[in-house]
């Protein structure tokens, strides 16, 4: 380990003294320190902080990814400049050399993440102090309760829509409605019917009520504590002030919960959060919420709106499970896990190719890892819907791309799965389980495999070249 550490130290010194790391440090500094003065979000304090964190953390991640790839140049440079002759003629194994380089990169990345994390944390508090408030009391409360926290989310339990779908299917079948349908697939039809019932359930007509059930709301149920209901609605018609009115009633008194009502007057098409006393959660940690599509405000007209809770914006209960600080730490660990994998990939490429080729290959993998989900969707879309439009050659090409994707899918991890920036910005908990998944799946499995491959290839190659 002494040798590995010696090489890692050397790598760090090289990164700093050759000014590569310093350039990236300055860039990260410019991004993190400059963003608060150039981004205002939606002019609210919460918006400013969210925009700053979102752009700052994403930019830091991208810059450190680039730094990691460029740092692998160290190995390439030593091969080209022959400094490796003096290292490999010392009692240094090839695995120690590769591992030392990787460790050096990882330590530099960790140091940079630490610096950027501390700076981002400091800047968040700076924005909080200095941002001109719209409503000082409300703005800060919103920020403290909805952003600078770690909240766990529980989505509402949807009713079983398969039973009514099944019943309608049977009825339609008896009535012979499907007799003339070509290539009729009962399973597809049942799914369609279930979706129809679900869509209907999400719509609340004028003067109608909908019940949302939440299970496993494992919060502190003391009366001075709160849970939050977060939702976004679409409205068919609304008042000229673009505001909809409704009434929420929380808690089932028959289940030992305090019942409270919350009339709401909210802007259409935006996320809203309603605070509910934690003792509205029942003894069995369930929360019942009743949504009435009626105007609870006296003296105002009843708008005959149809209110829709979209599937993509499901109603959720949020309750605080940790602090923003630890959330930020865990997010940085996730970022480090990704950089550790990327470092291993960059070293693998450098052991095989010259630096320009290795750099290109590493960047390609970095981009593929970041856009894996998007690529999958694009390829699925092509193969499902447009395959019949293609000529056979094109179909072949699409299938080939799918196979290539499958290979990539096995080799390259989905970085989006470990991207916690959105969660942090929305005050969602970056769970320890998530971090452990990254440590195990990304570092202990995939990084170890890639590093092992790099060591194997480096072990087999001659570090000297033709000189006759």
């Amino acid at each position, binding site marked *: 380990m002494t040798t590995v550490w010696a090489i890692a130290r*050397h790598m760090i*010194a090289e990164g700093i003294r050759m000014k590569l790391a310093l350039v990236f440090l300055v860039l990260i500094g410019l991004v993190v320190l400059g963003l608060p003065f150039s981004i205002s979000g939606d002019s609210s304090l919460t918006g400013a902080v969210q925009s700053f964190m979102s752009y700052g953390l994403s930019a830091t991640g991208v810059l450190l990814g680039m730094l990691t790839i460029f740092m692998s140049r160290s190995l390439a440079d030593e091969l080209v400049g*022959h400094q490796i*002759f003096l290292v*490999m003629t*010392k009692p240094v194994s090839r695995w120690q050399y590769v591992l030392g380089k990787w460790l050096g990169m990882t330590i530099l990345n960790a140091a940079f993440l630490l610096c950027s994390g501390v700076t981002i944390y400091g800047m968040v508090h700076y924005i909080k102090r200095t941002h001109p408030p719209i409503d000082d009391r409300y703005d800060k409360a919103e920020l403290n309760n909805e952003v600078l926290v770690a909240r766990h989310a529980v989505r509402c339990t949807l009713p079983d829509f398969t039973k009514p779908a099944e019943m309608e299917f049977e009825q339609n079948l008896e009535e012979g409605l499907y007799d003339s349908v070509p290539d009729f697939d009962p399973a597809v039809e049942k799914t369609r019917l279930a979706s129809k019932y679900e869509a209907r359930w999400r719509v609340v007509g004028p003067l109608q009520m909908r019940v949302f059930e939440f299970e496993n709301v494992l919060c502190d149920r003391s009366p001075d504590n709160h849970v939050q209901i977060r939702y976004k609605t679409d409205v068919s018609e609304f008042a000229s002030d673009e505001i909809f009115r409704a009434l929420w009633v929380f808690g089932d008194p028959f289940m030992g919960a305090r019942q409270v009502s919350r009339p709401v007057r909210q802007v259409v098409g935006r996320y809203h959060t309603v605070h509910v006393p934690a003792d509205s959660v029942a003894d069995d940690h369930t929360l019942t919420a009743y949504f009435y599509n009626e105007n609870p405000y006296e003296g105002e007209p009843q708008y005959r709106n149809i209110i829709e809770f979209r599937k993509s914006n499901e109603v959720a209960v949020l309750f605080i499970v940790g602090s923003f600080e630890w959330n930020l730490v865990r997010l940085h660990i996730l970022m480090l896990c990704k950089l550790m994998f990327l470092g291993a990939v960059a070293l693998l490429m450098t052991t095989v190719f010259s630096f320009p080729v290795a750099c290109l290959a590493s960047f390609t993998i970095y981009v593929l890892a970041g856009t894996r989900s998007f690529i999958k969707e694009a390829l699925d879309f092509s193969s499902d819907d447009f395959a019949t439009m293609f000529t056979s050659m094109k179909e072949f090409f699409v299938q080939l791309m799918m196979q290539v994707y499958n290979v990539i899918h096995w080799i390259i991890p989905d970085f989006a799965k470990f991207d916690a920036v959105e969660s942090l910005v929305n005050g969602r908990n970056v769970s320890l389980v998530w971090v452990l998944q990254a440590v195990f799946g990304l570092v202990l499995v995939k990084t170890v495999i890639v590093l092992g491959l790099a060591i194997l290839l480096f072990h087999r190659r*001659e570090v*000297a070249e033709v000189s006759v």
Partner: protein
Amino acid sequence: MAGQIQPVVQTAGLCKTFKDFWRRPHVEAVKDLDLEIKPGEVFGLLGPNGSGKTTTIKMLLGLLYPTKGRISVLGKPPTDVSVKARIGFLPEESYLYRFLVAHETLDYYGRLFRLPARIRSERSDRLLDMVGLRQEARRRVGEYSKGMARRIGLAQALINDPEFLILDEPTTGLDPIGARQIKDVIRELGKKGKTILLSSHILADVEDVCDRVTILYGGQQWAAGDIGELLCKTDATQITTPSLSEKTIAQVRDLIFRLEQKDILDISNPRVRLEDFFLRIVGEAQAANIRTSGARGGGEIPDFLKQPTESSTQEVVDSLVFAASQKVDPVPIQAPLPPEATGEPSSEVIQQLMGSESAKTTPEPVEAATERPRPARPDRPREKPSADASVIDELLGRAKQETEGHSEDKR
């Protein structure tokens, strides 16, 4: 086998063929090389550019893998990491990290040898003294001249007090002081029982320090043997005396003719070697305290390098056995190149003295020569001439005094 000394380097049928992009054999850099370097030997690897010297060294160090054949270095394959702890290597160019200062460079390589911090620091200081770069120890190596970088290269090769030192073109780029110092280091280490492989095409360097040499050409071995025997002109005798008068010379000539019926071939005043002359002039400049930002004259060889390599009883016994085996089982010397002559003074000398053309006929090639006591060679630095010693000692002595001055300052 018990009692047999294991060679430090042994190769058998060593081949290295470089292949092109399509994996077709492209260049045969080394062909069927059988090499054996014994412990304590200063071995010279000679050959013109592209003869396979560096390729051979790279294979010995595990930087290149042989296409065919076997290599054993200190009894193990060259890829064995443990072997490398006992090897020092100075490559043909210095290949240092430009961003490190000299002291950090030595410290880094010391770390790779897992030397404790105190020893690393001590050795780095002493080696920097030795190569005359103590005062430049905090400068980045990237700013060094080529010669200064070579000196750091030498220092790093010695940081682990190696048992086996490989020097590839060690004097390239060095000023005569540096070149001389490297030769002194080689001699000193050779005396202490270290094994040294010296690759060079500067023949004077090799001649000065090597016990045995092998000459490569086109990747093949063309000659190998004891350097004294390969170069000795046994058909002539040289006597060096203080300056003689014409009368005495005439009497000596008469005496030789009376006793041996031979005439003197050449009478002249011996010349000082240019290297010695240069060192004397630079020594004078240093004595005048002329400022320089380059390397100093260099200091004393550190004590840790002066320790004998082997000290245990068994090793002493082994060395005695080795000496005996040398006598009993001499290593054959190949001598395919036409030697000057061997054996007793022959009729050729007389014929030459008589001006006969027949004296210029090529002598018969010798059979594989046997190991013999090395003939006395007044020009060999092994028996260092007093002139050489005085100059280098003067330089080293001054450096030593400076070092002592530094240490006093520190106190």
